[in-house]
Structures are given as structure tokens and as C-alpha cells.
């Protein structure tokens, strides 16, 4: 998965214009550029490959067929796509009637020599993904964008509609919450 740099966002503009004129090649390039990232983002939220596929496809369809709603006025296309993915995820939760949380009971969190500390390096990827889903919506979003998607605080701020400072504060709280969730697993 390619990192989402500023250059990629800038490169989107001529492609967007071509898609508006019906150019399928340009649509394909944007699809290739974003599909994996969006799939990864949605999967991190839901934890189910089938749902992640459906929502990633839905997100790309909406993004590339509703370009008349997208106006490049300070908001990058990438931010717009992530917002669509986020809204699709929220809609999915609503349709399900509740948040789909993968049960943590199945996770096994390693204990450090010092009981007050997590053995972070020994945590499995699945443990981390599952623990992350126990956080609030915004906390999940900020950690996924910053660490799974490797976005800068400024990019995450644009996607979340917050200031950079607010994102940094939220990130700090989210990491603290994640640590507590993982500790809870250790102590249970």
C-alpha cells in the first residue's frame, strides 16, 4: 500500500477532471490508487473481509460517480474519499443496529515482566486490531488514519474536520484508551 503523500493528492486533480469527462482510464487509476487503502481502513473498523469489500466498493463507486458533488476547494480528493468511507462505515453500523465489535475474549495478550507495563512488542497484530475496535468511533478513526494508513496529523485533521491540535490530543487519548483496553485483557 503506497503512503498517501501530498503529491498523490495533487496528482488527483487532472484525473478527476478526466473522470468528469467520462474517461474510464482515469477512473481506473483513481480506483487503483485508493481501493486498497479504503479496504484497509474499513477492514480495520469492521474486522470482516466481506463487509470491508462491500463498503470499499461502495465507497469507490460513490467517489467516482458523484464527482459533481466534489468541489476541490481546500479539501483534497483523498480526504473526500476517506470521509465517504467513514460515513459508509457509520451507516453500516446503523443498519446493523449496533456496533459490531469483535469479542476480545478470544485475544491473548502477553504479560510483561513488569505487570504495570504491556509487552508491546509481543502483541500480535490481531490483538491490536481487536483491541482497537473497543475504542470510541473517533479514537478508532484517528489511530487507523495515523498508524495503519500512515497519514500525517494534518492529513488526518482534514479528513476528520478537526484542527491538527485536536487530532494530536485525540490521538494521545486514544493511545491511552488502547493501552487500558490491552491492560484489561492482561488482567482478566
Amino acid at each position, binding site marked *: *500500500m503506497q503512503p498517501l503523500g501530498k503529491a498523490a493528492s495533487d496528482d488527483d486533480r487532472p484525473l478527476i477532471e478526466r*473522470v468528469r469527462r*467520462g474517461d*474510464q*482510464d482515469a*477512473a*481506473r*487509476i483513481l*480506483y487503483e490508487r485508493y*481501493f*486498497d487503502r479504503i*479496504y*484497509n481502513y474499513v*477492514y*480495520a473498523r469492521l474486522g470482516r*473481509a466481506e463487509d*470491508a*469489500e462491500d463498503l*470499499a*466498493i461502495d465507497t*469507490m*463507486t460513490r467517489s*467516482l*460517480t458523484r464527482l459533481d458533488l466534489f468541489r476541490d476547494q481546500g479539501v483534497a480528493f483523498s480526504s473526500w474519499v476517506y470521509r465517504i468511507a467513514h460515513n459508509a462505515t457509520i451507516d453500516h453500523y446503523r443498519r446493523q443496529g449496533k456496533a459490531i465489535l469483535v469479542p476480545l475474549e478470544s485475544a491473548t495478550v502477553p504479560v510483561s515482566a513488569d505487570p504495570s*507495563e*504491556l509487552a*508491546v*512488542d509481543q*502483541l500480535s*497484530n490481531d490483538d*491490536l*486490531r481487536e483491541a*482497537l475496535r473497543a475504542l470510541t468511533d473517533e479514537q478508532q478513526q484517528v*489511530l487507523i488514519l*495515523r*498508524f*495503519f494508513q*500512515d497519514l500525517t496529523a494534518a492529513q488526518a485533521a482534514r479528513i476528520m474536520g478537526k484542527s491538527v491540535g485536536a487530532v494530536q490530543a485525540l490521538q*494521545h487519548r486514544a*493511545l*491511552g484508551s*488502547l*493501552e487500558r483496553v490491552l491492560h484489561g485483557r492482561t488482567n482478566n
Partner: protein
Amino acid sequence: MTPEVQRLERLAERLRSVDPVMPSPGAKIRGWNLVLAAVEQSASGRSRSHPVRRLVLAAVAAAVLLVGGAVAASADSLPDSALYPLKAVVENVRGALAFSPSDKFAYHLDLARTRLTEAEAMIARHRLDLAGQALSGLNDQLNQAALVVQAEQLSDPALAASLENRLVQAIAMHDQQLAGLQGQVTNPAAIAAITQARDRAAQALQTAAKPTSSDGGKPSTTSSDKGPGNGASATPHTTPKH
């Protein structure tokens, strides 16, 4: 730095190292087919001045609905799937409905991308025989696209230049993907197949740049032509067979 900040920094670093979860190649193909259909529908809705195109799209849509679930399921099938031959039929229908040079060109480029995605999937599944066929199909489609460009050089040089530019971009993108793929495989046969595919893709550019012969504007042939049915028209596709 306080102990709490240090702990959270370590946790953040650990999160950064979590491997990304990627979609399956089949899901990616299925997604593109659905997105492409939506984009085409969206474009046709905007394009009120092209009634013939709308009629063709309506006919294609009706045909797709009539053929039903099997065809839909075949759209994202891969070369090792039982539904793959049906995909070939659908692609042939699409080719038959591509009348203008631009449509033919787009058709061949689209199939080239599909073949490349299939090749990636087959390599991931260690089906090197099918991967080789898909790569061969990729090159055939690029060559067909190049022949469309070549055929337009006399009749519409501006269009030919535009198409050639798109072909250059497409081949560059394919080459980038193939290079990435080449870096991931270790099997010598797979590496050789990918190398050959990259070379043949580059040859397609030379074909596009060649002047057409003067005998009625027919495109000149290249060493990679395979005989009848491989001309500039929207000929039946070259989906690799099992």
C-alpha cells in the same frame, strides 16, 4: 519525556508496524467491474447528446440482466475458475459493441488491465501456467490497442496522437506494476515470463508509432501478430484459455 509518553510512543510504533490487510485480487476485480458499470451509467446519464451510445448501453444492460447470475458471477472470475470461459464470452460481446476507434482502443486497454490483474492473482496462487497465459493476453491486448493507434495515423492524426499518449501512460503503469510483481517473485520461470511481458509491452509502443502502409490505410503488422483476427478492429478478445 514522561514514562507515560514513552509507553504510548512504543504503543504507537507497534501500531505502525501492523501489516496492512489487503483485499483479494478477486475482490478487486469484482469491485472494478461494479465501479466501471456505475461510472459508465453515470457518464451516459450526463451525456444526453449521444442517443446511440445510450441505446447501446441500454442493450448491453438488458443483455446482462437476461443472461443473469452466471454472467455476473463470471465477471470477477479468474483463469482457474470454472466460470472463466463465460467471462470470455462477455468480453467478446463487449468487443463487438465497440465501434469507434476510441471505443475499440478503450476496450483493448481495459482487457489488458484485466489480464494483468489476473496474472497477479495467478502468480499469488502459484499457477504459473495460467499467469503466463494471462501475461500473453496482456501483451496481445496492448498490441491490439497499438494497432488501433496505427490505423488512425492517416485518417485522424490528432486522435492517433491522443490515443498514443494514453497508450504510453497505460504501458508505463503496467510496467510499474510488472516491475513490482517481478520484485516479489523468486521463481525463475515467473521472472522470465514477467520480463518477456515487459519487453513485449514496450514493443507495442513501437507498433503504435509505425506509419501505416499506403494500401488503403490498413495497419502494418508486427512480428507479434498472430494472423487472422488480430487486426485493428474490435476482434474477439484473447482471454487465455485453460
